[in-house]
């Protein structure tokens, strides 16, 4: 069964200015990601994979091209519209977890829900569900400094999924973890994709991590190669 495309990218280009020099990063990229897909973007350092992820997640703006997520052209949105759009549609998982150190695991996961109309009681239910999915029910009142790297990343994933976003973007989510903790995180992402049908875009330079995805695409010097379907 062919699922509709949740991400549609057309003729996307992005360059950075370094002093007087313009450095092209992405060069006329077009591709689609079907809903419920688990895509790994691989490439060497400086290949533009994180830039592409940032553009898809709406935290950066392209020079040219169109990005449609769930039918919405996010390149046409203003900064404040983009902020609202991100809150409703994107779940972020970062390499260094990016948890707020003065908030407990529970409070960190609750953060995205503060931008919704949910009541305090409803928020509590959502947060507890997300944390229990991540196996962190017993750790929800701990601060990030009291958790291991793997646990912190699981809190970050709980924060990413708690508001039920359209897409989940993960930028080197295992880059700061040992092999066991990394596998744990990759299994979690796989489960979220398989069991909850979450569309996941994973950026990694680790081929082992990329094996968790269903599709791997390589990016090199701003150009995307063909799909490599793993399963």
């Amino acid at each position: 069964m062919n699922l509709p495309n949740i991400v549609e990218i057309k003729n996307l280009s992005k360059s950075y200015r370094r002093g007087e020099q313009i450095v092209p990063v992405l060069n006329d990229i077009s591709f689609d990601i079907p809903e419920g897909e688990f895509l790994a973007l691989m490439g060497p350092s400086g290949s533009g994979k994180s830039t592409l992820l940032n553009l898809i997640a709406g935290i950066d703006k392209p020079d040219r091209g169109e990005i449609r997520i769930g039918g919405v052209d996010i390149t046409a949105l203003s900064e404040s519209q983009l902020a609202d759009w991100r809150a409703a549609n994107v779940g972020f998982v970062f390499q260094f977890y990016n948890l707020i150190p003065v908030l407990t695991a529970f409070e960190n996961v609750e953060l995205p829900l503060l931008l919704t109309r949910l009541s305090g009681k409803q928020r509590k239910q959502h947060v507890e569900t997300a944390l229990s999915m991540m196996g962190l029910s017993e750790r929800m009142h701990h601060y990030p400094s009291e958790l291991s790297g793997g646990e912190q990343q699981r809190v970050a994933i709980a924060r990413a999924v708690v508001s039920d976003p359209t897409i989940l973007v993960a930028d080197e989510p295992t880059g700061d973890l040992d092999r066991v903790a990394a596998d744990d995180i990759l299994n979690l992402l796989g489960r979220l994709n398989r069991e909850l049908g979450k569309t996941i875009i994973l950026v990694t330079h680790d081929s082992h991590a990329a094996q968790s995805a269903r599709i791997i695409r390589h990016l090199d010097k701003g150009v995307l190669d063909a799909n490599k379907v793993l399963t």
Partner: protein
Amino acid sequence: MYLLKLVFRNALRHKLRTGLTLLGIVVAILAFGLLRTVVNAWYAGAESTSAARLITRNAISLVFQLPLTYQERIRKIPGVAGVSHANWFGGVYISAKNFFPQFAIEAPTYLDLYPEYILPEEEKKAFLLDRKGAIIGKKLADQFGWKVGDVVPLRGTIFPGNWSFTIRGIYHGAEQKTDTSQFFFHWYYLNETLKRTIPRRANYVGVYIVGITHPEHAAEVSQEIDNTFKNSLAETLTETEKAFQLSFVEMTEAILVAIQIVSFVIIVIIMAVMANTMAMTARERAAEYATLKALGFAPPFLAKLIFGESLAIAVLGGAVGIACTFPVANAFGNAMGALFKVFYVSWQTVATQLAAALLVGAIAAILPTWRASRVKIADGLRNIG
């Protein structure tokens, strides 16, 4: 609620840094309040004046006196409700460092014109009946531990000789700003003594205190008094009691201006310290702000976080500084003795201190907020690790 929680936890994240910043604000607000109180104390004489009183003095200088005979002529001028007179005595109690103001007054009329000096009726009666009696203010009594019945010896400087007075009453001020550091005794006792010792100096007064029926006619009554004595041997200068007191303040205006400037410089310095702290804090949290923005929190939320933290530190420091101002000002006032007639922390000073603390907090947050709101999410996220 969530925002407040985050603000306070952020404020306490670096306890040493926050503690040192707080200490700086406490000291700055305390010093600011103390200096403002010193300035206010300087103006206290003018602030405690009545619009219904005029002061008539010799037009040439206060050093020169006026004939006693002027009193009845002033009394007859339309608009005058009452007239009294006083002489600056300038005596020394044991040592010159024990300075306090002493006045020889025409007691019954003087006390009528100064209802803000609250004196028990029996003490007033005892004072009026005792030619060598004196009344003193509560502050002065506390300073030297004097009580009713004590004899106070004074060495005359302007009026030579050894004088002694028996304290017959201790007056309280009707208001906090009322001067209770003064020493009053009978002008007639002084005058009788002068008649015997230096007759040519007898029957002269230092100033006339003129009570008027309508304060709004002060200028006309003053003019009329001065016109009455125009071309006489001792021409007069009449002005409101406030203008008279301010003429003393003006003599030290340069010092007051310097104190005022220093008080504001202190606030500017702590503002710079606070701004540096907040800038450092915001720079360290660039990745957190980027994360919050990525999650969908808009720049106004970041502004509330940064302003909230800055204001929380500034207001807490300000509150402690204000609280410390009272005992410190009290101790300072006591140490200064009678140098300041009135020395208390006014509510205006407290309001100014609070406003200064708020201003410090608000201004310190402007630049970090501006930077945090402008930082690109992708750039901010790169700051981590």
